């Protein structure tokens, strides 16, 4: 991989984060409501205390200066104070981030193992199995996470009682049990998309000339699949897996709400409803950062698999 390529992608990452942070701060700066009134809890204050508050929170400074103070603090992990819970936003985020990370990680594992696995099987074995996999995945791809959530709760939590319906667990094992249904709800449509792309990538590679040549040379099937088909098919598979996994970060908010999980996404939603702006800013910043970092990782993995990308030429 070329160093210049990595440097360019890193520069783009920083630019994206700067613009994103600017939008997040700017949008909430424009939000109706007086920040001093929010700080004082609605009580009217004497002018001297008003001045103290304005000076402490830099409210008397121009917009760009305020943005700079906010960004500087944010980089140092100081994201302000929640108006509703009167606690540090970074503490509030810290106590919820692992639920979201666990959920997204669990769902990613399901997508990678089941999605790619089913795609490979369907791609290598045309016939009835393949056709049914195609139809199933077309339907699953259209099931939104929250519809999957209520269907999974109705079936596996209420009817069969295999898994708890709502809430977080207490220790690692019970957390895994609590996160199983949410992770499947979150993974379902992405799983179907990854399976479909994997299948068509495998099918396409299997028909290529170099594979036909390898078959005629009598190379054993295992080696053929691993070295000649999977190696090339890995490029589109990595791309689609990366994109769908990155998109889970935002959808997690919907799934956490559906399962009453104590995660970042659900907290973001309630904070948006309560207009707890410091929390909305902080969580948005964390989620956008995670999103662009995963996208960067995908781009780099893509460049390792397909050196043409890093060399600047277009993939054929």
């Amino acid at each position, binding site marked *: 991989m070329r160093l210049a390529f990595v440097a360019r992608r890193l520069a783009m990452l920083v630019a994206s984060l700067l*613009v994103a942070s600017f939008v997040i701060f700017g949008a909430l700066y*424009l939000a109706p409501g007086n920040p001093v009134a929010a700080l004082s809890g609605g009580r009217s204050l004497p002018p001297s205390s008003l001045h103290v508050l304005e000076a402490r929170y830099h409210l008397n400074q121009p917009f760009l200066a305020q943005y700079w103070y906010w960004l500087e603090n944010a980089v140092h992990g100081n994201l302000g104070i929640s108006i509703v819970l009167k606690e540090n936003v970074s503490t509030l985020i810290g106590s919820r981030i692992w639920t979201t990370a666990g959920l997204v990680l669990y769902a990613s594992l399901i997508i990678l193992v089941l999605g790619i696995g089913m795609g490979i099987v369907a791609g290598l074995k045309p016939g009835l199995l393949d056709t049914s996999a195609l139809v199933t995945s077309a339907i699953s791809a259209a099931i939104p996470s929250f519809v999957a959530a209520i269907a999974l709760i109705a079936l596996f939590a209420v009817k069969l009682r295999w898994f708890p319906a709502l809430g977080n667990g207490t220790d690692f094992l019970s957390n895994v049990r609590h996160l199983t249904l949410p992770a499947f709800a979150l993974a379902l449509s992405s799983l179907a998309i990854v399976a479909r792309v994997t299948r068509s990538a495998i099918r396409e590679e299997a028909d290529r000339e170099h594979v036909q040549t390898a078959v005629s040379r009598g190379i054993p099937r295992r080696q053929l699949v691993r070295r000649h088909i999977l190696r090339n098919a890995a490029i589109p598979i990595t791309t689609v897996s990366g994109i769908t996994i990155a998109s889970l970060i935002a959808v997690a908010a919907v799934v956490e709400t559906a399962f009453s999980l104590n995660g970042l996404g659900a907290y973001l939603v309630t904070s948006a409803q309560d207009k707890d702006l410091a929390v909305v800013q902080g969580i948005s910043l964390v989620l956008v950062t995670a999103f662009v970092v995963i996208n960067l990782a995908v781009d780099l993995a893509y460049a390792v698999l397909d050196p043409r990308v890093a060399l600047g030429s277009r993939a054929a």
Partner: protein
Amino acid sequence: MSVAPAQQRAGDAAPLVTVRAPRGGRTAVGLLRGTGAAGIASAIVIAIATVVAVIGSLIAPFSPTLPNLAVAFVGPTGSHLLGFDAEGRDVLSRLLAGATTSMLGPLAVVVGSLLAGTLLAVIAAWRRGLVDAVIGSGLDILFAFPGILLAVLAAAVFGAGLPAASISLAIAYMPYVARVLRGAALKERSQPYVAALEVQGASATTICLRHIVPNIMPLIVAQATILFGYAMVDLAAISFIGLGVQPPAPNWGVMISENQVGIPQGYPLPALAAGGCIVAVVIAFNVLGERLFEQAQARP
């Protein structure tokens, strides 16, 4: 060709090189016929959903908003085919009336993102060079915002509601539209007929609007169809988490969240019925969109 005889009669007045601009997008019927049985079946589902979205509240047999707690979560009876919801409203009536906001929101998202995305794509392809690079990196940065996150942010600033959610999604989808269409527009830009029109003195606006856009129209239609499905899922999700359409207004996403309480009580029908409507319409848009996309890509 009806113009051929006229040109022959004109004789020496005919231009030295005749480059005929290829006919713009085929007719809607032709496009649809090419998508096969699955595509036509999907189009029928979409047509039904559209009709219901327009006249749904007129054909609803009962009031979709008048609660009657005495019949909350009562199952299907003779005249109430799908039973009653958490507040004792007729589920079928609420589904029919809810189609309007459930379909109108995605329509607004698709129209908004396609107008802006097509405009940027054509400008980037036409001017190439620096303009293309600037638009390209601007869109790359916009990729950093997942649609739902932008909608939550908009709800925090402007208050929850369908307009804010639709505008946020339109902005978030725009880069995807522009990226696909830019490639197609670039290919069209390098066709000989474009150079011929330029030589003949046609203005850039004319060439873009009368020739390039009509020629990439099949791809635009395919994009619109696929995006409609995505927009429906995302907007229903935003309404489900309480930041989109506000209850008691009927909407499929809202219906799922307000009837979620019925699931632990062993009565999931109202929530699942609303979920079923979303899934059926999204499948139809996905299948039709995929077929239209393949068809558009297969064009020479």
